[in-house]
């Protein structure tokens, strides 16, 4: 939960106190829980009543029994007092529990919607938005909104109602005296709110400094060899000391503001009481005020002032929630660039697709830069195509177009004659299983990483797939076999093992079309042989489109397609291309000179 080091920009901006447009939309999420909401709204008045009634009961007991000395009915009052205490306890407990529950329910719904929406967004979106910010949307922003519900909104309504009713009560008792009190109120409220806001800013700055210290310490620990090798201990101490000192100084400010806030409201209420004594004394001299009303006023001042402190805190909660809502809704409103076809447009692929692929006049580029232009490529069912070419020739874009990770600007891509943009994304991507250069491993067991949490893929199938690729060899040697948990991103596996797992994943999902971007990371000789065998088996009975980096893959392909500067420049079998004396022949001569025949 470590906060991002440079989170002091967008994330800490305050929103308005209340934004009607945002709130209206947000209430849509609260609607399914409106019964609980109603329940939450009636609890505060009950609690307030039971609290207010207690002094009255004591008052009655004193006047009727303690002063007179007769005890008839005294026990009834005692019972009433006990009852009120219990009621206050129960409503107090229910009030916070129900609020917390409402906050959690509303936010669970919103979170799941946000996450589901994130999954529909395309690669270009992820390239634009840093993952830390997106994680913050779903985790932290949602939390801020939940805070608004559980700690702010409902209690805020209660507080405001309480303030209004006390003020009305005072006005009824003595309009002139209340006017005097109410004139002083805005100044007190203003100062309390300003101090609270300032406190928030200071506290956030403190959190930020703390995060920076943690980041520094983490970096120093991770780079401990470098710190030692270059004798940087003194330097590190100076740098860290600077942050630590700034944190210490910031703490002084926040300590002061906290103490000030605490004392200010207290002192202000005493001064208002002094003012009541003075003005009330004058009014009493005029015979326009009774002592009873004056005492009631003093009591009312206490009741008025404590919610103010509370309100100031809630004000900032609301502000952070508003800016969080704004960001969250903006994210929800970002449309996915690549979406399912409309039901009317959608064509489901046949249950057993042949795996014929057709690129027709495909052109693709980012902005001004053209990546692929005028690609014409027909791949027959079961054919094995190796795509080769220099870096930046557009090889990986070709496969992105096939499973619709990108969309061409011109031309079309068809599978079994159906344009890919007419096939709903899920069946399309199940049809063309793409394996990237780097196998991304999730936290979880080896089996979960092969089956990717698909309940339809049984453990037997996973094991079978691992046997097919030969991955089972190293998996068996692991402490818990297929159930071994991977450490962070699988960094306890070698490059070769990761590649094998990626291939096993494809076996388990069994797509009719194999799309593979061969890994370039070099592996030891044993893994190399295993990977070669696995690939051989994977291609069996499938149409294969492979961005080839291995000579063996290239040699065993039915056809080699050479891409250069976004165009297909050569195409044919290994032998044909060598004889053509073109780019492939040059590449081949350059790159495989030292390759011993024994490998293939």
């Amino acid at each position: 939960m470590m906060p991002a080091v440079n989170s002091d920009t967008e994330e800490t901006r305050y929103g308005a106190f209340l934004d009607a447009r945002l709130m209206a939309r947000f209430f849509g999420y609260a609607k399914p829980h409106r019964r609980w909401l109603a329940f939450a709204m009636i609890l505060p008045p009950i609690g307030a009543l039971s609290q207010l009634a207690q002094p009255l009961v004591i008052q009655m007991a004193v006047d009727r029994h303690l002063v007179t000395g007769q005890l008839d009915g005294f026990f009834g009052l005692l019972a009433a007092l006990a009852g009120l205490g219990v009621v206050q306890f129960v409503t107090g407990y229910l009030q916070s529990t129900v609020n917390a529950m409402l906050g959690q329910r509303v936010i669970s719904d919103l979170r799941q919607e946000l996450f589901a929406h994130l999954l529909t967004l395309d690669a270009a979106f992820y390239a634009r938005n840093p993952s830390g910010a997106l994680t913050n949307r779903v985790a932290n922003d949602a939390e801020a909104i939940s805070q608004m519900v559980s700690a702010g909104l409902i209690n805020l309504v209660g507080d405001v109602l309480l303030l209004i009713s006390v003020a009305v009560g005072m006005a009824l008792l003595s309009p002139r005296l209340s006017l005097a009190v109410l004139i002083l109120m805005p100044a007190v409220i203003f100062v309390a709110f300003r101090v609270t806001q300032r406190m928030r800013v200071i506290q956030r700055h403190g959190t930020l400094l703390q995060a920076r210290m943690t980041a520094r310490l983490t970096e120093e620990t991770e780079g401990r060899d470098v710190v030692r090798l270059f004798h940087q201990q003194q330097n590190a101490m100076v740098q860290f000391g600077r942050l630590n000192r700034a944190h210490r100084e910031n703490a002084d400010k926040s300590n002061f503001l906290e103490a000030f806030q605490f004392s200010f409201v207290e002192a202000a209420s005493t001064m208002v009481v002094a003012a009541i004594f003075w003005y009330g004394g004058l009014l009493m001299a005029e015979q326009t005020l009774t002592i009873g009303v004056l005492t009631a006023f003093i009591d009312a001042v206490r009741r008025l002032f404590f919610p103010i402190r509370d309100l100031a805190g809630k004000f900032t909660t609301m502000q952070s929630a508003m800016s969080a809502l704004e960001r969250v809704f903006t994210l929800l409103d970002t449309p996915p660039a690549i979406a399912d076809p409309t039901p009317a447009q959608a064509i489901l692929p046949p249950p057993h697709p042949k795996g014929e692929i057709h690129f027709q006049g495909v052109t693709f580029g980012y902005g001004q830069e053209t990546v692929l232009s005028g690609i014409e490529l027909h791949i027959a069912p079961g054919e094995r195509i190796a795509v080769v070419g220099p870096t930046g020739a557009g090889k990986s874009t070709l496969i992105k177009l096939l499973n619709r990770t990108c969309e061409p600007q011109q031309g079309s891509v068809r599978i079994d004659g159906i344009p890919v943009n007419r096939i709903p994304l899920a069946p399309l991507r199940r049809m063309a299983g793409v394996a990237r250069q780097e196998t991304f491993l999730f936290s979880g067991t080896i089996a979960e990483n092969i089956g990717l949490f698909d309940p339809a893929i049984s453990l037997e199938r996973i094991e079978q797939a691992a046997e097919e690729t030969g991955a089972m060899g190293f998996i068996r040697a692991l402490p818990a076999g297929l159930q071994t948990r991977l450490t962070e991103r699988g960094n306890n596996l070698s490059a070769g093992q990761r590649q094998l797992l990626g291939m096993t994943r494809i076996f388990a999902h069994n797509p009719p079309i194999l799309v593979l971007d061969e890994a370039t990371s070099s592996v030891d000789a044993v893994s190399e042989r295993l990977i070669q065998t696995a690939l051989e088996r994977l291609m069996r009975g499938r149409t294969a489109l492979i961005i080839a980096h291995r000579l063996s893959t290239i040699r065993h392909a039915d056809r080699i397609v050479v891409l250069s500067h976004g165009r297909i420049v050569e195409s044919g079998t290994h032998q044909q291309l060598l004889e053509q004396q073109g780019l492939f022949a040059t590449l081949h001569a350059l790159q495989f000179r030292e390759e011993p025949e024994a490998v293939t």
Partner: protein
Amino acid sequence: MKNATTSPAPSRLRHLLPLFAGQKRAFALGFALLALTNASAAAIPYVMKLATEELMLRKVPHTLILALVVLAIVNAFFRIRSRTLIFGIGRDVEFALRSRYHAKLLSLDAPFLDQEKTGELASRAAADVGAVRMFVGPGFLQISNALMAYAATMPVMLGLDPLLTLLALAPIPLVLGVSRLLTRRMYRLSRVVADRFGALSGFIQESIAGIAAIHAHARETDWNRRFAAETEELSRAALRHARLQSLFGPMVVLGGAIGGFIILAHGGREVAAGRLTMGDFVAFSGYLAMLIWPTVGFGWILTVMQRGLAALDRISGVLDAHPFLDPAVAAAPAAEKRWTGAITLDHLSFAFRPDTPVLHDLSLEIPAGSLTGLAGRIGSGKSALLQVLARLHPAPAGTIRIDGRDLNTLPEAELRRELAMVPQESFLFSSTLLQNLLLDRPDPSHFRAREAIRLADLEEEVQRFPQGLETLIGERGITLSGGQRQRAALARALVGNPSILLLDDVFSHVDARTEARILENLRAASRHRTVVMVCHRVAALQRADRIHLLDQGRIVASGTHDTLLETSPLYRDLHNTMSRAEALEALAR
């Protein structure tokens, strides 16, 4: 947590007590200010009572009103002063403890740090040091307040009516117990909530990082299902915490209400019978109200202190650790004279862990100014040898000598000036490239940085960086490719112009041609520098004056590339593997 009661208190506070030494006066002053705060606060209701009495006589109580205003200001002043002073002590202790902890961490070396998790070391400096602060500042405040509240009210209450006092205080143990129990469980549950929140964030982060894999296999539905389960877990944990928290306030109020009930039930009858005055009755209710919150605070602070002690234990674990090298030796002044750079290994054996030896009885001479290659399979001990040579890990006394001096006796400043190593992981700090190169060298000469960049063949690329050498790299700046990072790390080692340069497989992400160029540059720049390198390319090894072939921690063959190729089957095998890898690598580009 569980060792909270195992060792006696004084020894557990050994690292904390010295920090209090200069704070005695501050504590005394803080206590005095707190007493004044409480006294002035208590005076306010009394003045109000007097003022009401005067009003009853139809007089405007001008003096008392003035007194009220003065009291309000004085009370606020004392309260602010006492709180800032006492919390300030806590902050001072926090600051000093964190500085000590950090300095200690810097003095510790690989054998200790390798056993610790980075995240935990960092969280000790943040969370644990913070927990100790709570123990000092708020701890002192709450305990003082509770003491004063009881000291002020108990004599009066007992003097009025001992029996009623006992009865009225009956709910106090309940309040204390509940406060203690609830706060303890709340802390525990808030940890659970934080963990679950961390897990949720981790899940989101991982899903974003692996979004391509999720899309490629159309796994969205299952991922949504998994996310819902994570959300549910967090929600449940948060609710369990909220329910407990919801109990806290009402429980305290209930405690007060029970006391009030007892006072009315018993005291009321006493008043009715004329054994107690009306004023005493009102006073009792007031005193009880004064005791409730300090008691709650006391219960809470006991929990805070327990946590603070546990945190202190974790910090002490680091403060009590020792580096393998005698700090006095390390801090000794550096000799001015430059080294020639001759290295002698004399029956060197080494193990990271006692039961698994890594290097066995190595003896060899590395002449000054030579280029020495270390070859061998993964795990043969090449990197370990470099790490020991660089004194990142301890070698037995006398087994490594540089220019005839035992490695373990060399001052740290001198060693680091003369010997540079480029480790396998090219770690760079997230600051500018220039800062990474120069570090804290007193002579901030751009010239040396530029020269190093040129030698490491990074010059051209740096020119294309948005701000050249001033470009910020790492999380907040641009991301360097693996090859760029390796060359930047190499350049950093070259800036200091060391006599000995140790290179641990630093060209793995650099292509063969660039590697050749860099080695050429290094040779041309200094013919006197001793270079020892681990590498996995045939061409680089061919350049070495001498290659030592390691296998399972022993030197199995030594010689030039050509002789080894003829005489050593292991080297031949390795050579074939390397050539093949190079061909594959070339195709990838």
